[in-house]
């Protein structure tokens, strides 16, 4: 366990297979880590938080839920997924979005700066501390979803968002769930299981009332979204209404986004050769010996 960045750099060192463990909640994504790897833990804790900058500096080992508790004191949050035990670094390197992508944007846009340990054991800074920055290549986007194969996240600066004044989940039945996404202006999520539609509205209370009143059909307020099946499929949003439940099994689809939470595992997606080579070439340049999280492969995720 580490609470400082220098200690984390020392733990990773310059050689030998190594993996970072966050909360271990997404440990299966993109393959299992080779068993010979040394396990290291990234620093934990909020380093600096200034609500008026709408940024927070946080150790990558910090649980997302703990971070969100602190941010909520100032009426803010991030758009990282908060699953029990998941760490900030883990949520970033897995890069999965939460169900509120429609309204809150994608997890990959949350990362402003990353200080990570490279395969050579050097502490590297990608990105910058400000909310807007186009200085040099955007390595932060590359790190999100990298499964820790290009560098090991030590400390990050995240963009925060204000928590809206009002929010509610509604549930109802409509012929075409796309109409719900089209008619509401405050929806952060529209979920659909083939029969039932759930919508999460957030914003100014009066606007929520307006949106709720305009919903097609009868909607009732509920406590939260349905339980999501464990596998994630990915489709063009326009194709969701035609999805084949005999392939996915029982599902919950994110309307307007394209993610389908399915009971059946997603069949492997074909990756064109040129794209596969480019991915490998990136990994070769950043970690020629494959010492960082060996065994995990973003192409398999």
């Amino acid at each position: 366990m580490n609470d400082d960045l220098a200690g984390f750099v020392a733990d990773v060192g310059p050689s030998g297979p190594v993996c970072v463990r966050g909360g271990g909640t997404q440990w299966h994504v993109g393959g299992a880590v080779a068993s010979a790897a040394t396990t290291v833990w990234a620093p934990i804790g909020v380093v600096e938080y200034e609500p008026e900058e709408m940024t927070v500096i946080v150790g990558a080992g910090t649980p997302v839920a703990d971070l969100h508790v602190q941010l909520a004191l100032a009426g803010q949050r991030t758009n990282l997924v908060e699953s029990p035990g998941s760490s900030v670094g883990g949520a970033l390197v897995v890069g999965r979005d939460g169900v509120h992508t429609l309204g809150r944007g994608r997890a990959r846009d949350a990362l402003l700066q990353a200080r990570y340990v490279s395969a050579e054991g050097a502490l590297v800074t990608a990105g910058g501390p400000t909310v807007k920055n186009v200085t040099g290549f955007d390595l932060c986007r590359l790190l999100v979803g990298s499964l820790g194969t290009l560098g090991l996240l030590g400390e990050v600066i995240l963009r925060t968002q204000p928590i809206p004044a009002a929010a509610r989940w509604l549930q109802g039945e409509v012929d075409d769930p796309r109409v719900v996404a089209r008619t509401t202006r405050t929806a952060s999520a529209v979920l659909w299981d083939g029969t039932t539609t759930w919508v999460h509205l957030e914003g100014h209370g009066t606007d929520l009332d307006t949106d709720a009143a305009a919903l097609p059909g009868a909607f009732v307020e509920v406590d939260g979204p349905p339980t999501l099946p464990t596998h994630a499929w990915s489709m063009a949003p326009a194709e969701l209404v035609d999805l084949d439940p005999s392939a996915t099994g029982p599902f919950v689809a994110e309307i307007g986004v394209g993610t389908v939470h399915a009971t059946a595992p997603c069949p492997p997606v074909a990756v064109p050769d040129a794209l596969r080579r480019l991915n490998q070439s990136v990994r070769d340049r950043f970690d020629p010996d494959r010492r960082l999280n060996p065994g995990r492969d973003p192409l398999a995720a």
Partner: protein
Amino acid sequence: MRLRRRQAAVVPDDPCTAALVDALGVHKVKVDGASRYLAARDASVYRDGAAGPVCYPETADEVAACVRIAARHDRAVVPRGAGTGLAGGTVPLGTPVVIATTRMNRILDVNLDNRVVWVEPGVINLDLTRHLLPMGFHFAPDPSSQQVCTIGGNVANNSGGPHCLAYGVTSAHVVAVDVVLPSGEQVRLGGVEPHQPGYDLRGAFVGSEGLLGIATRVAVRITPNPPAVATLLLSFDDVEKAATAVGAIIAAGMVPAALEMMDSRIIAAVEHHVHAGYPLDAAAVLLVEVDGPAAGVAADAARVGEIGRAHGATEVREAVDEHERALLWKGRKGAFGAIAVIKPDYYLHDTVVPRRALVEVLTAIYEIAARHDLIVLNVFHAGDGNLHPLLVFDGREPGTMPRVHAAGREIIEASLAAGGVLSGEHGIGVEKRDFMNLQFSDDDLDAQARLKAAFDPHCRANPGKVIPASHSCADIQALQRVPDGVWG
């Protein structure tokens, strides 16, 4: 800045040009002096570029053919959009083959359920938004140059604009890019489906300033037009009060669609030019726009007004109708045109600082300009701390350019010292390449060079930009040397 124009002699029958003409046809390859003169510059102050043959491909396959032919003849390639870049990104170094996307300007497919539009890279930013208007959508990134700049240029520079405060810069609005790699291979990075296997190479490509390949098709995310909009003009008798109000608005939990600041000099220039109704006695104004569903907009607009008054605003004016709103924005967006009345030349800077440092850095900028005997005007994206100090001068007056460059360097240093970054939206190009070492360590730059090497192992795409000589794959000195056979 050199006043002599340099042009390397490119003869139509040189083998590379001959092969390009063979592949594309004679009407899509230009080697005349005028074409190469135009392709040698952009909107930056850099005049040392020298273009080789200028190609106007119409399809991705033609772009790939150009890239392959250039590689075969050991020539670099430089993609070019509208040439409005302010960092010299498309200024060709070492007489490369220039690949202009202006003829690839079709909007290919609009899918409202996907909220995605496929466009060719030469589509003009505002043309896309105009096309979407009747459908109730727009393309959110709105650079002030949007009437002329291309989506390809926006992607390459990860461009921003006033409305990117709430909506995010270009990267957040690009879901996929079809790219011709420096090898000539074609790949799709990203996709319309939300999850894609592998690294986010789409994200790495956006903002890569033409150094990782050439975009031939772009899938952009489109944004529904807001049902309600309120535009407010807050006047202050003191710049510091205005800057403090910016922080207070954000701290109150609002993210306005736009939050722009203008100082008294720019107000005077704009009023003279556009008659937008800005108060001539104000030291600074904030142009604040909130948008979204009606009730939230009304509540936020009221709070912005209250916060402004609490921080000493001398006047709070809300645009009463679309006409007044358009006029207020016309003043802001026309600011750069307006400064011509002061001096003929300008150098627009672009750094970002934390919002808390706005007052400190603005004060430093006024001081730096005064010390170098230059006029500086400030009109910028205050909401995200993105400063745009505008130095105006007459380049014909002897001894001016060294002062302009010295002041520029000090502005950059002051921004970095306050915890800021080199560029918020214009990019690095040639302009800030040699400042990269001020923000990044050797190890940081090494990581950037690795990404470049993964895409472009032979260093063929837009060499000599972004990465400083210490880490560049290109021999920057050789690139900047006057090529053989120069005339002009």
